[in-house]
């Protein structure tokens, strides 16, 4: 990566922006002294030396949040937008709360008349060139500019002249994932600071000055970092939009449910945005232990696999060498027949199974399949969790399955040589784990989240049945990520196809056996 | 001789039945358009000139419709009711004289289908039959609304038949005969019955409105309360028969009141002059004069009947329906005593005048 190209001037306090998870203040010598106090809106709060007024207010949730555009807790402080100004007693002018360190005995007013008047003025200035094309803009409904203008903005603009238009940058594709509309930009430069200090790729810059200030890519490599989606998350206006979500749905129609990303062993916390059980996007949720504020583009796009029409969501049975859709009971009955006559049975659990599923399969396999079985786990990307490595300084990992450590903990052993050996093999995976090697006559029963293409490209012709299973965001369970953090999740959407839980299938297999 | 009698009888029947049934579609059209005019509307004006073919379209529709019979209906009476409804007033029409006489082929033809001395009794008998289709239809179609309509209809017709009979009785005393021919002759010699006995005429007029179930006395049908009353379960041509029966009954009632109170077929003022003018113009003999007179007598009766038909329509679109207790009050507490007193007064008057 390019982090050795530039020596970046860092703020003295290293901020908590990434998976490195440094506590904000690790200096233990400070804690011995009595903590200083600051009064915000009539109430006194203790703080640690070095905190800015904004950080104190954030920590104690002083009534409503102080409005801000350029401030982001995981980025260096810029103090350019002037939206967060507060009144500090004995200070001649309003102070930007994001960059003013709190001092002992300081008295701050965040809602005084002077402050509100200042915010109105700032909003008026920010809106001079903002096109107000909210009906077209995808950010509408979750836009900070919209919200703050509604709360603090003037009812009439004093600006009578023609608005500035960037003709070349109205809908400029910065990369395959991100579109820029420079007209909407309020020049908070969060995106520039993100590429400078968080991803350390330095691929976005501001060019020109003043009226003509414009966001652009730094060089011919374009926008190339792996966290471009985060730009569209924290952009306070609709200047940077995520192409995959562009014009698909208005934000206010979306149901928002928390879940965990299963694209790699990091297990980023996400919010699943869906409408009528169709997922439209994932956005990251702050979790200091796991992912901070961020999420990689690969994980962000992973909902497409679930919503793929190629995904198998009804039970399939091999009928004269063609897969036909039937009822689950028929498939289970057929599978039972095959298992009864089989000489040896092998169960392969993908490391994308939840801890509960892996434990259940380990415990109940012998009972469910009628005879002793060998059960192993298979990852497909790495052998064991010891081999898991970071791909960059932030979040991305080598292991592309979410629960390798969790499955290992259940006591399962890895599949020897990654190769199937029994007469009949039951492969349970949820779309992330690799497919084990097999010979062309291997009898397999596929179970979990499968794609039609994957099934077609299997080296064997002896596919007995496909039992569809629920994907991560459709079920309940827990993952143990690469750092050993156990994360429990609940269904974010309701599955509308024929897929069922592992418990249901194991129950059906066990009954009437 | 007998051959001629048969022919002339058939001809008279054809004339009366043809005219009365032929008038029905015209009346249906007129009722609908007349209603429209009286209410400031246009009415049916799409089918044919002035919408005159509208009844034809209705007939086509009635014929094409499914001829259904409700479940659990008594099929015999269910089919019988509309037949009685149509045939009874047609029979009653047979004793209404529509002219004095005509001379055809040298033989005298009395312009009345059935010459009988007890003509008025015959009419009353058949008018009394009109209660049967209502009761039969209402009972046989196995529907609560129909039964309610039938009960209303029977009690109403029975109530008003009394005052109608009393009003008729007073005129019988005046005329001293049951024979309609002689009544008309009496009236053409003296005065119209309505001038002699205006109360009797009024009571009779009101009573025939009730007898024919026309507004304001159409309680057996009372759409707002009992849907369509006794003919609720009738569809297609069976309903059309009830529909036609209503108009034939109106024609019969109009002919009856014309004969009893308004001079029947006797020539209207000025018609006599017209007859003599035409006769002298074409140089008719005695036979010709008699026939021309007969034609004008027929026209005279038709115009009187036409007026009463118009009156039926006119009243219908002017007055709202009575409440049932009001109807009974009017019948028993007002019309019945009034007609009774009227009968006594007329009797006394006739006794003293004949002295």
């Amino acid at each position: 990566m390019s982090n050795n190209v530039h020596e970046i001037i860092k703020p003295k306090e290293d901020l908590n922006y990434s998976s490195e998870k440094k506590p904000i203040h690790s200096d233990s010598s400070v804690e011995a002294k009595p903590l200083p106090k600051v009064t915000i809106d009539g109430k006194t709060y203790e703080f640690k030396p070095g905190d800015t007024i904004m950080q104190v207010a954030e920590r104690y949730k002083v009534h409503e949040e102080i409005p801000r555009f350029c401030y982001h807790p995981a980025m260096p402080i810029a103090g350019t937008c002037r939206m967060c100004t507060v009144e500090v007693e004995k200070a001649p002018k309003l102070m930007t709360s994001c960059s003013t360190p709190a001092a002992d005995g300081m008295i701050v007013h965040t809602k005084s008349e002077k402050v509100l008047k200042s915010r109105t003025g700032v909003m008026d200035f920010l809106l001079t060139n903002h096109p107000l094309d909210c009906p077209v803009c995808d950010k509408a409904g979750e836009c900070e500019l919209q919200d703050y203008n509604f709360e603090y903005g003037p009812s009439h603009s004093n600006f009578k002249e023609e608005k500035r238009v960037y003709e070349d940058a109205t809908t400029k594709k910065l990369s395959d994932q991100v579109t820029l509309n420079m007209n909407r930009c309020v020049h908070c430069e969060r995106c520039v600071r993100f590429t400078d200090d968080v991803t350390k790729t330095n691929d976005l810059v501001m060019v020109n000055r003043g009226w003509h200030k414009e966001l652009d890519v730094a060089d011919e490599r374009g926008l190339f970092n792996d966290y471009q989606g985060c730009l569209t998350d924290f952009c306070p206006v609709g200047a940077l939009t995520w192409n995959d979500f562009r014009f698909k749905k208005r934000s206010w129609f979306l149901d928002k449910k928390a879940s965990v990303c299963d694209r790699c062993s990091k297990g980023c916390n996400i919010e699943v945005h869906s409408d009528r059980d169709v997922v439209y996007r994932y956005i990251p949720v702050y979790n200091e232990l796991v992912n901070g504020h961020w999420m990689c583009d690969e994980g962000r796009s992973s909902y497409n696999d679930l919503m793929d029409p190629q995904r198998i969501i009804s039970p399939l049975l091999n009928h004269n060498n063609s897969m036909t859709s039937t009822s689950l009971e028929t498939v289970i009955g057929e599978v039972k027949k095959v298992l009864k006559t089989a000489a040896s049975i092998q169960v392969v659990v993908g490391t994308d199974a939840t801890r509960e599923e892996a434990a259940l399969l380990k415990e109940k396999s012998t009972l469910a399949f009628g005879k002793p079985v060998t059960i192993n786990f298979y990852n497909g990307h790495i052998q064991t969790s010891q081999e898991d490595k970071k791909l960059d300084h932030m979040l991305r990992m080598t292991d592309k399955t979410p629960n390798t450590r969790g499955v290992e903990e259940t006591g399962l052993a890895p599949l020897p040589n990654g190769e199937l050996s029994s007469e009949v093999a039951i492969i349970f995976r949820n779309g992330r784990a690799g497919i084990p090697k097999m010979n062309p006559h291997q009898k397999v029963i596929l179970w979990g989240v499968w794609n039609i293409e994957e099934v077609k490209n299997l080296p064997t012709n002896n596919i007995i049945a496909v039992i569809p299973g629920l994907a991560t965001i459709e079920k309940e369970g827990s993952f143990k990520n690469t750092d050993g953090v156990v994360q429990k999740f609940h269904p974010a959407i309701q599955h509308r196809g024929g897929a069922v839980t592992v418990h249901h299938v194991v129950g059906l297999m066990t009954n009437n056996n | 001789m007998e051959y001629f009698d048969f022919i002339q009888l058939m001809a008279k029947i054809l004339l009366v039945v043809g005219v009365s049934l032929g008038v029905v579609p015209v009346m249906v059209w007129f009722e609908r358009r007349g209603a429209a005019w009286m209410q400031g509307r246009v009415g049916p004006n799409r089918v044919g000139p002035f919408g005159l073919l509208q009844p034809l379209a209705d007939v086509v529709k009635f014929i094409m419709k499914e001829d259904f019979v409700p479940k659990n209906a008594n099929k015999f009476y269910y089919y019988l009711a509309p037949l009685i409804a149509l045939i009874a007033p047609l029979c009653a029409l047979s004793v209404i004289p529509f002219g004095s006489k005509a001379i055809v082929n040298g033989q005298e033809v009395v312009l009345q289908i059935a010459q009988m001395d007890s003509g008025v009794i015959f009419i009353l008998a058949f008018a009394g039959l009109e209660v049967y289709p209502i009761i039969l239809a209402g009972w046989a179609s196995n529907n609560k609304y129909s039964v309610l309509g039938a009960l209303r209809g029977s009690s109403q017709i029975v109530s008003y038949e009394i005052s109608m009979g009393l009003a008729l009785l007073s005129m019988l005393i005046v005329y001293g005969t049951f024979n309609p021919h002689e009544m008309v002759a009496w009236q053409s010699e003296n005065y119209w019955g309505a001038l002699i006995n205006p109360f009797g005429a009024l009571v009779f007029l009101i009573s025939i409105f009730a007898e024919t179930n026309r507004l304001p006395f159409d309680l057996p049908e009372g759409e707002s309360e009992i849907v369509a009353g006794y003919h609720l379960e009738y569809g297609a041509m069976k309903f059309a028969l009830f529909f036609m029966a209503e108009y034939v009954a109106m024609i019969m009632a109009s002919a009856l009141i014309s004969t009893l109170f308004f001079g029947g077929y006797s020539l209207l003022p000025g018609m006599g002059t017209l007859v003599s003018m035409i006769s002298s113009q074409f140089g008719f003999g005695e036979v010709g004069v008699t026939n021309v007179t007969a034609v004008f007598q027929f026209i005279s009766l038709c115009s009187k009947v036409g007026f009463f038909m118009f009156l039926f329509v006119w009243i219908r679109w002017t007055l709202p329906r009575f409440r049932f207790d009001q109807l009974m009050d009017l019948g028993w507490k007002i019309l019945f005593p009034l007609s009774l007193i009227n009968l006594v007064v007329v009797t006394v008057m006739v006794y003293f005048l004949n002295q």
Partner: protein
Amino acid sequence: MGTINVSKKYTAKERAYLPAILIGMKITMKRFIEGFFFRKHFTILYPEKKRDYSDRFRGAHFISVDENKTENCTACFLCETVCPAECIHIVADEREEETNIYGVKKEKKPLSFDIDLLRCCFCGFCEEACPKDAIKLSTNYEMATYSRDEAIVDLDQLKRPMNGRHEKKDN
């Protein structure tokens, strides 16, 4: 509690009933003569003559177009959001060519815009919500169709030029 008797005593004239009937018959006869001889009526003979409704009448929808026959709609979904009957269904897409009066590229267009007239309650909220004055309710009240499918109108059927604030009529 208790009832108030609002009925009044009838006068002798009213109790006689017949004079009132005659007055009523006089009125209906007057109307009859007017209708029969002078052809006076209040009915609008519908298919030949049509009632002119006020411009504020809320009838069938249309989507206004600009001089290039491009719809003004930007697929902002506000009408779909506000619609209480949920009868509007929009699919949005990137608009490639057109620019607005300031020369700025229009970004978004409706790929499809369906209104289910059978679900619509003609409240006019969509017209009020529309930031581009694109969706409007016309004075057209003839929306009968032979099938339910025909009652779902799409963008091509909805697009119509504007005359001032209202739909441009042919005459």
